[in-house]
């Protein structure tokens, strides 16, 4: 029988994905018969490199795991270290960290919204989204002194102090601008015929499917699962603020859009509360750990520790084994790693024009995700779970 399909590669150098990933799609006419995801374009070996490094160095490295959720990774590592050494961060430091985390969420969601609009050809909305995102970057510059990689975390404290009158007012000013224009975005997403017709009932993930694939973050919330680390295991200052957990039930690309858009408002709400209740006293320059971390902290009995934060894309989980101020073992599980598993199933049977919409609705961040390849002598190696553990863990 003659095969009526033909295969084309989507990516790695494709406008569909800003980061390299290759999806080989087997097309039958205009519809996808089979999709095969190929990765590894961004794998560098971060986990391997973290091993054997001192904690200060690791803090710097974890910051560079991803450019968009750079804060989330460093916060995760800081949390893990603070948990192990039982350092209680200063209250104001916690507040500042939470503000940065929420600003990062707004920035990431606006960036994503812009891209999602760009994928469906709505370039004007893309430009508007990016215009609003610039306000958030200005806020970052004011607080942390950097636009993208923030480097605000220290063990037990933060690097820069926060003045309620200066920085607080500046942030509230900028956020008011975003808040003012937000109803326009929501109206567009709800009413515009192009957006609704391109996004509704595209890439639907049912609730059971989302549970089966252990989805996290906005992806899970769009399918109706109430899963958010900020609510489930409050960290930093999240236990002191009041915010709503946003869920949608449809589970399609449009629901994911709505979840992310509505989360922007919640984030603004959180930041407002935090600035209002910000403690007056200045942030300490060093905690008892001192500038060079290990100097005067008693060595704990335990060695295993973990950090868990809600990054803009979902739950970010770091697991470490730390001995005498040296990281012995590291494992990083990023949100995209959890979410991306479903993609091959989801792409089956869709029209080729829907690929960008579906992939962008995942908000994938591959540089976070690509953690491991096992290659020996140029051959792939397939291992059972216990074999793998004994060999590599």
């Amino acid at each position, binding site marked *: 029988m003659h095969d009526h399909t033909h295969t084309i590669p989507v990516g790695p150098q494709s406008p569909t994905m*800003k980061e390299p990933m290759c999806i080989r799609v087997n097309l039958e006419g205009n519809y996808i018969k089979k999709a095969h995801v190929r990765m590894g*374009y*961004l794998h*560098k070996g971060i986990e391997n490199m973290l091993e054997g490094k001192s904690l200060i160095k690791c803090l710097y490295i974890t910051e560079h795991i991803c*450019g968009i959720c750079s804060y989330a990774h460093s916060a995760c590592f800081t949390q893990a270290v603070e948990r192990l050494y039982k350092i209680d961060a200063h209250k104001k430091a916690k507040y500042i960290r939470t503000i940065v985390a929420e600003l990062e969420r707004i920035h990431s969601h606006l*960036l994503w919204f812009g891209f999602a609009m760009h994928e469906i050809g709505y370039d004007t909305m893309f430009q508007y989204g990016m215009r609003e995102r*610039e306000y958030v970057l200005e806020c970052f510059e004011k607080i942390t002194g950097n636009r993208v*990689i923030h480097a605000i975390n220290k063990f037990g404290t933060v690097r820069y102090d926060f003045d309620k009158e200066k920085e607080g007012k500046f942030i509230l000013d900028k956020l008011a601008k975003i808040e003012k224009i937000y109803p326009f975005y929501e109206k567009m997403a709800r009413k515009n015929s192009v957006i609704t017709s391109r996004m509704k009932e595209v890439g639907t993930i049912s609730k059971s499917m989302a549970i089966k694939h252990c989805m996290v973050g906005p992806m899970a919330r769009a399918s109706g699962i109430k899963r958010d680390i900020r609510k489930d295991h409050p960290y930093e200052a999240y236990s002191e603020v009041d915010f709503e957990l946003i869920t949608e039930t449809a589970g399609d690309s449009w629901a994911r859009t709505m979840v992310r858009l509505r989360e922007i408002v919640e984030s603004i709400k959180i930041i407002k509360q935090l600035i209002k209740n910000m403690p007056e006293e200045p942030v300490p320059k060093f905690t008892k750990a001192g500038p060079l971390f290990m100097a005067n902290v008693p060595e704990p009995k335990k060695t295993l520790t973990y950090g868990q934060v809600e990054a803009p894309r979902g739950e970010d989980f770091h697991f470490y084994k730390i001995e005498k101020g040296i990281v012995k073992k590291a494992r990083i599980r990023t949100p995209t790693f959890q979410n991306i598993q479903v993609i091959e199933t989801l792409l089956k049977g869709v029209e080729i024009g829907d690929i960008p919409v579906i992939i962008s609705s995942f908000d994938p961040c591959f540089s976070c995700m690509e953690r491991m390849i096992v290659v020996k002598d140029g051959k792939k190696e397939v291992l059972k779970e216990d074999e793998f553990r004994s060999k590599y863990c």
Partner: protein
Amino acid sequence: MNMIRKSPWVSIFNASSCNGCDIEVLTLVTPKYDIERFGAQWKMSPRHADILIVTGCTNETTKKRLKTVYDQMAHDKVVMAIGTCGNSGNFWRFCYNVKQRTDSVVPIDIYVPGCPPRPETIIDAVVKALALLKEKKNETKKNNKKATKK
């Protein structure tokens, strides 16, 4: 007249970068730092591009791909390495999957330091790249003339 100065077309290549530089390059096409006012356009196909922006340290998987993309570009071309990772490899050069610096894979004309560099820096680099493109153009003209004389 040399028109390459007036319309540089840019293509971006992600060689296992951390996204930080990519989103700063992306900022260039947005309202605040619109580079289309210099005539620059973001092109999807490397065949159309005059300037290739490379971000990130080149790992083993992207090495071959970067070379292919570079070969696909039409002459005269300029390659810009954005960010510390692209310039020196940053700390990634100690990773097992990163065995070389980007400039050992393709010749790099302009290095832009910073982690990530600010958009203003990248605009400055693009302007410098234009001058370089003009130089390259003149050189190839000279070489062609020499070749025809011989």
